[in-house]
């Protein structure tokens, strides 16, 4: 008979349960006892035969308590607490009990498993427990009122109700000053947000205790302290949105620790959603956050939100200006906004040993770039949903990291005021980008030197012209001065010419030098038309001596571009030299290059260059921008490759085609400079 009452799905567990020293009882969803092991017989004084098939609640001397515990169990999925059961002899046995719900494969409730041990101490258990007892799976607290010694001293002599408002103030002060020593998981879950138990320790009780019932708690503390025998005192509270009709019990920890008290709050969670569902969803969420491959910081900037609201109500609209006048507000935020949680990736990013290393006011994240915090604050003040920027942070092990910092601000209408920071380590990426930029700069520098090499004779000619004029003019001056009657007027004229030629030589040398020196690209706003004219200066002589005509058409409204002037000149110079070489062998009428600038349809700046040379072999069209592709016997084949790389680095493109009327056409497309906001 007993066997049929056993859990049919776990019949081979039967033997194990039979031998267990802990009482094991299985009840069906209706509360009917279905299994009762030998340990249960010993503990509760009933043989299995007598109780299997009966309502378990009928064993309780207080059926109301049992009904409460049962409904809490069904709602929360587990229950832990004290159970009293009448024995066959009429005694009452007290046991510490854990009850768990079990579900079958289809997810419907199958049964309740109850484990129980004899309660080691009598009810009231004011003994010196080291841990906060998990009484009735209540939300329990251990608190320390030592910091409230002054307030307690002032409250002690007063009869309740002597001066209500002053007393109320003192009672609030008491809860405020009382510190949390420890709380259990349930308390942390119910009122701790997601700070976790460890983070609640040391904080003010008032930070977590509902405002409406703080005076009640304070009075209970006073009463519990006043009770000489250390008995517990209880009060039922109104539902507070956290628990339904919670019962608060307070008792002294023990005579050896006079300032410590235990607080237990019993009650079902006042929430329509099932506890199990919530718990599972929270666990999933936390796990997800914890293992997310992005470093996440959760911060509680709720008090800053209140400050911002106050500032707005005082008419502050220019928050940036306000922060200029009150830089201390940024420092205040750095020192007072706590980090409440971080994930694993965050710990790895800053090189911490544990969560605790990172749970500090947010200031440490902004030590290297205080202005970033200022911008983060401005972002929230101005009602943005998120904000992101690149900044530097100092890791805990001293490394300086480049990170992309993003913040997601709390939604104003949602109850939870949590701000999320995410940090992405971009140190390596920036390093590679810098290296690539350096390589590209080296490459284009090498190409420039090579171009200058091709232009050597032109350059020599160009520099020597003014030098020749200077030397001859100077020597002529000396001859005038050496005459019996020096012609000062003539000398003055010659000296003026010397100065003019010297300036000209200087201009040329300066231009050549800018092409020849190696320097990091420096983006500046550039007018495309100016750029083309400057580039023409380099090759003017080259083009003139080859008898090539250059016709130009500059559009008036060409968008400004941003880039490195020297590199972009290099592109145009290269294309011009290319074109000059292409038309060199043509008859005089065809020795022509046409260049034009205009605005593209998408707002970009366009430069086109068309020659009347033989054009590009269609087989080569796809390769002419490849490195080391050349059709010239002396060519290195890097000219056009470097053009493409420079233009690409500026976010643009270069293309080549054959014009339907003959000759090659090159187009350079460069994005417009972004309007400064």
């Amino acid at each position, binding site marked *: 008979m007993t066997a049929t009452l056993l859990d049919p799905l776990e019949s081979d567990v039967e033997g194990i349960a039979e031998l267990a020293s802990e009482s094991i009882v299985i009840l069906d969803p209706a509360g009917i006892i279905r299994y009762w092991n030998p340990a249960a017989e010993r503990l509760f004084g009933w043989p299995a035969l007598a109780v299997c098939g009966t309502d378990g609640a009928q064993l309780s001397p207080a059926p109301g308590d049992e009904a409460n515990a049962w409904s809490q169990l069904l709602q929360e999925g587990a229950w832990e607490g004290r159970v009293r059961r009448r024995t066959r002899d009429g005694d009452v046995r007290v046991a510490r009990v854990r009850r768990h719900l079990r579900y079958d494969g289809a997810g419907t409730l199958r049964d309740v498993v109850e484990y129980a041990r004899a309660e080691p101490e009598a009810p009231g258990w004011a003994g010196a427990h080291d841990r906060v007892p998990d009484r009735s799976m209540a939300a329990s607290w251990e608190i320390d009122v030592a910091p409230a010694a002054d307030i307690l001293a002032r409250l002690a002599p007063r009869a309740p109700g002597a001066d209500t408002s002053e007393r109320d103030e003192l009672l609030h002060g008491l809860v405020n000053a009382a510190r949390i020593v420890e709380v259990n998981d349930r308390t942390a879950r119910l009122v701790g947000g997601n700070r976790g138990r460890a983070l609640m320790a040391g904080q003010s009780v008032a930070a977590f205790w509902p405002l409406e019932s703080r005076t009640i708690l304070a009075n209970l503390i006073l009463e519990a302290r006043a009770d000489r025998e250390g008995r517990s005192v209880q009060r039922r509270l109104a539902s507070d949105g956290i628990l339904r009709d919670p019962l608060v019990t307070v008792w002294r920890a023990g005579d050896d620790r006079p300032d410590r008290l235990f607080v237990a709050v019993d009650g079902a969670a006042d929430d329509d959603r099932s506890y199990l569902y919530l718990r599972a969803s929270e666990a999933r969420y936390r796990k997800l956050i914890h293992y997310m491959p992005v470093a996440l910081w959760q911060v509680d900037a709720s008090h800053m939100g209140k400050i911002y609201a106050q500032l707005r109500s005082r008419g502050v609209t220019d928050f940036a200006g306000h922060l200029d006048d009150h830089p201390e507000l940024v420092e205040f935020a750095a020192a007072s906004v706590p980090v409440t949680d971080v994930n694993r990736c965050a710990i790895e990013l800053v090189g911490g040993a544990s969560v605790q290393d990172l749970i500090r006011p947010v200031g440490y994240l902004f030590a290297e770039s205080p202005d970033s915090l200022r911008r983060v604050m401005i972002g929230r003040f101005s009602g943005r949903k998120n904000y992101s920027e690149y900044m530097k942070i100092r890791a805990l092990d001293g490394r300086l990291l480049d990170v992309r910092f993003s913040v997601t601000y709390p939604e104003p209408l949602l109850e939870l005021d949590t701000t999320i920071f995410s940090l992405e380590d971009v140190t390596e990426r920036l390093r590679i980008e810098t290296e690539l930029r350096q390589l590209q700069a080296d490459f284009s520098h090498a190409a420039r030197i090579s171009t200058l090499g091709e232009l050597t004779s032109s350059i020599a000619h160009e*520099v020597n012209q003014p030098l*020749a*004029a200077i030397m*001859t003019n100077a020597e002529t001056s000396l001859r005038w001065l050496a005459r019996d009657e020096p012609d000062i007027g003539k000398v003055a004229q010659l000296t003026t*010419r010397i100065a003019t030629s010297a300036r000209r030589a200087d201009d040329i040398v300066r231009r050549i030098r800018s092409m020849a020196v190696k320097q990091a690209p420096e983006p500046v706003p550039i007018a495309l038309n100016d750029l083309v004219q400057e580039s023409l200066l380099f090759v003017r002589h080259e083009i003139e001596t080859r008898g090539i005509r250059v016709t130009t058409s500059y559009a008036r409204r060409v968008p400004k571009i941003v880039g490195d002037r020297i590199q972009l000149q290099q592109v145009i110079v290269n294309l011009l030299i290319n074109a000059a070489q292409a038309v060199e062998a043509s008859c005089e009428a065809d020795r022509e290059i046409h260049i034009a600038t205009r605005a593209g349809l998408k707002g970009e700046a366009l430069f086109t260059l068309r020659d009347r040379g033989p054009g590009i072999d269609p087989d080569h069209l796809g390769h002419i921008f490849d490195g080391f592709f050349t059709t010239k016997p002396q060519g290195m084949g890097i000219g056009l490759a470097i053009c493409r790389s420079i233009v690409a680095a500026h976010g643009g493109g270069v293309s080549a085609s054959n014009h339907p009327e003959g000759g090659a056409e090159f187009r350079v497309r460069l994005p417009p400079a972004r309007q400064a906001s």
Partner: protein
Amino acid sequence: MSHMPTVAIVDDDEAVREALGDLLMVSGLACECFEGAAEFLAARRVRQFDCLVTDIRMPGMSGIDLIERLRDERAGLPVIVLSSVLDEATRSHALAIGARAWLTKPVTDEHLLGALAQAIASSGSSSKR
């Protein structure tokens, strides 16, 4: 009466032309400047020159073309090249086709005037013969 020798200067650079013109003037030589070979050839049809100083790299007709043209015309006009071209092949070619001297810019007045004196003297002696 011995006429004042007239030197023609062909250079596309105005500053160079002006400087050379003034130097020759203070040295007691008459001179006329041209910004290109074509202008000089046109002037030569109506005027006599005793010497030509020319650049090599110029738009239009180059200095080499000009020397070849004069050689083909058997003009007998002494030519001095004053250029910044450093190419040895061009230099040898210019000298081979009849240039009297190849001077590199920038040039000292002594060098230029010395070369001019020699060129004019030789042309004078050749015309007497």
